[in-house]
């Protein structure tokens, strides 16, 4: 009872506030977890949007109009997310930056789709959101869960030209999920085959039997999904058996502990890892602004949210209108400079140039490969 009273009060306040807003503004909805257990994922996106909107309004806004930000909470719950979406629509938002969690995003997307509202998430990583093709109104500035597997497979097949690949994982959610994507992509490519698909038990005394099996499969490369302790055991075991099989892994292995433990055997190992954007001038500016305004370092997905807000507002400016089709076309065709780099979006809504790079161990250090 108490809750609903507060909710009514809050919505009244917002309603009063809403009527005061000039009719001629660009309305940016910001949806996500702003309360509850997962608020730490959602609140940084609100701050990111605030900073961007402040900057843009200080420069005179977009298309001569001021930008107004409208945050709405979904607590990362799919059942609340549809209400959140409906509330934003009733406030006549033009575009939405959000939601945060994949489940909530999926629930809300249907509502936005029916109303032709472009939605861009800084953090929803579920591959289906873009790849299913069900949500032409959806975009995101974060790489999807299968992005690492795709990069690993592309790298092995197209750059290293490998025909036989062994896919190994550590039976965990992260490693096995990645391995499943990787073997799916290898089969789909038609250019290489999965000659071995195995899970190893983390913490087992040794992996000699699996290593012998890899050798027997005559694989040109191993794609390993998992973390560095297992990876270093596998790599050093393989190298001690004089196997030159290429080893490709994920950001669970792109860790300096891996090099420290596997030592000379780590040389030449490939691993995908998040692109390093810390030296980008816009990243530095965004972080500095955040520290100045809120007195602390930004939280999770801050840069993704910052970039998403920039991309949305830039698209409106380039489109010259707030019409749905025009914004979509602009997002897909116009590059925008963001802290994550210069980005535009593909047909599915995934940001091009965002996400992961391939690294290789050279002289005891991970070095980014530029291909």
């Amino acid at each position: 009872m108490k809750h609903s009273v507060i909710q009514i009060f809050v919505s009244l306040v917002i309603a009063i506030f809403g009527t005061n807003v000039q009719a001629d503004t660009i309305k940016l909805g910001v949806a996500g977890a702003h309360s509850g257990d997962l608020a730490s994922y959602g609140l940084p996106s609100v701050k990111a949007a605030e900073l961007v909107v402040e900057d843009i309004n200080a420069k005179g806004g977009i298309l001569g109009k001021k930008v107004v930000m409208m945050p709405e909470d979904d607590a990362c719950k799919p059942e609340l997310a549809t209400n959140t979406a409906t509330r934003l629509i009733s406030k006549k938002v033009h575009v939405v930056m959000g939601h945060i969690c994949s489940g909530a995003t999926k629930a809300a997307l249907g509502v936005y789709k029916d109303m032709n509202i472009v939605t861009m998430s800084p953090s929803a990583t579920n591959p289906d959101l873009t790849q299913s093709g069900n949500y032409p109104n959806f975009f995101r500035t974060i790489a999807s869960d299968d992005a690492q597997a795709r990069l690993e497979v592309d790298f092995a097949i197209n750059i290293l030209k490998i025909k036989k690949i062994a896919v190994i994982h550590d039976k965990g959610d992260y490693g096995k999920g990645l391995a499943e994507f990787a073997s799916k992509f290898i089969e789909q490519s038609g250019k290489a085959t999965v000659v071995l698909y195995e899970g190893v038990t983390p913490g087992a005394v040794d992996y000699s039997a699996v290593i012998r099996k890899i050798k027997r499969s005559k694989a040109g490369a191993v794609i390993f999904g998992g973390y560095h302790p297992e990876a270093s055991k596998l790599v050093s075991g393989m190298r001690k058996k004089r196997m030159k099989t290429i080893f490709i892994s994920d950001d669970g292995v792109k860790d300096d502990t891996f090099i420290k433990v596997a030592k000379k055997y780590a040389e030449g190992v490939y691993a995908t890892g998040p692109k390093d954007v810390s030296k980008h001038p816009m990243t530095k500016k965004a972080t500095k602004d955040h520290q100045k305004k809120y007195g602390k370092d930004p939280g999770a997905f801050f840069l993704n949210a910052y970039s998403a807000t920039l991309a949305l507002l830039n698209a409106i400016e380039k489109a010259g209108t707030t019409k749905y089709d025009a914004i979509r076309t602009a997002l897909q065709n116009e590059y925008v400079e963001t802290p994550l780099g210069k980005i535009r979006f593909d047909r599915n809504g995934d940001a091009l140039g965002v996400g992961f790079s391939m690294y290789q161990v050279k002289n005891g250090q991970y070095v980014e490969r530029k291909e």
Partner: protein
Amino acid sequence: MMTESFSESVLYFIELLLGGLTRGSIYALIALGYTMVYGIIELINFAHGEIYMLGAFTALIVSGIMTLHGYAGMSVFFTAMLIAVIYSSAYGFTLEKIAYKPLRNAPRLSPLISAIGMSIFLQNYVMLAQTSDFMPFPSLIPDFECLSWIDYMIGGPELVILVTTIIVMICLTILIKYTRIGKAMRATAQDKKMAMLVGIDINRMISATFVIGSALAAIAGVLIATHIGQINFYIGFIAGIKAFTAAVLGGIGSIPGAVLGGLILGLTESFATGYVSSDYEDVFAFALLVLILIIRPSGLIGRSELQKV
């Protein structure tokens, strides 16, 4: 699915066999500690895996210090091994005095809980005193030149593991069968009261059992750490569980049983991985355990309770 010549298949089989024997030897060395302690005080010493881990850590520290002072090669290996054995034996000795001796006449569940407590304590102690990260362990055993033509089949460390295990088994058998202390230990295992009456200091015998078991665990710890090149505070847990399984498989309380159980478990895991899938490695290992316990409830060469007395 694959075309391979007959000789390649044979080679693959031999590789799996050697891999299984190596792993099995490690299980056997640890299993001996479980089985000896069980034989003498009917306690499952769940902290035994931690002794193995402590042995590996001691060797890491010793070899680190020695490398810093310019020593290299097998001298480091032997010194590290010796100090690890001494340290682990001291831990085993102290463990018994602190955690088990005061509970010797308590209900059987109490020392078991005490053992689990010690296991958790030792893990966390090493985690706090050392690190929770994985630590690189130096390859103390060099790859022997004379082995280079078959090192794709068996490397230096694996050979050392096999040879060490055989030597240790022989020494242990001689110790138990023919020496005074061995005889006294067997007497204590059979009947404590009677052993006391004929003048055996059973407290000393129980301590001796813990010391020997811990020394074997330390040897296993150092061997496997130098073979795979990494350790952390948690390695004792899985190795301990597997060795315990091996001890039960062979018949807990029986020394040849522990060795046999360890080797069978190692070979089963190796062949299950090699010919089926490593996803089912543990499934096969434990299915075998269940099967053997159904057919022979007291393990492969375990004494049944009736024969006792």
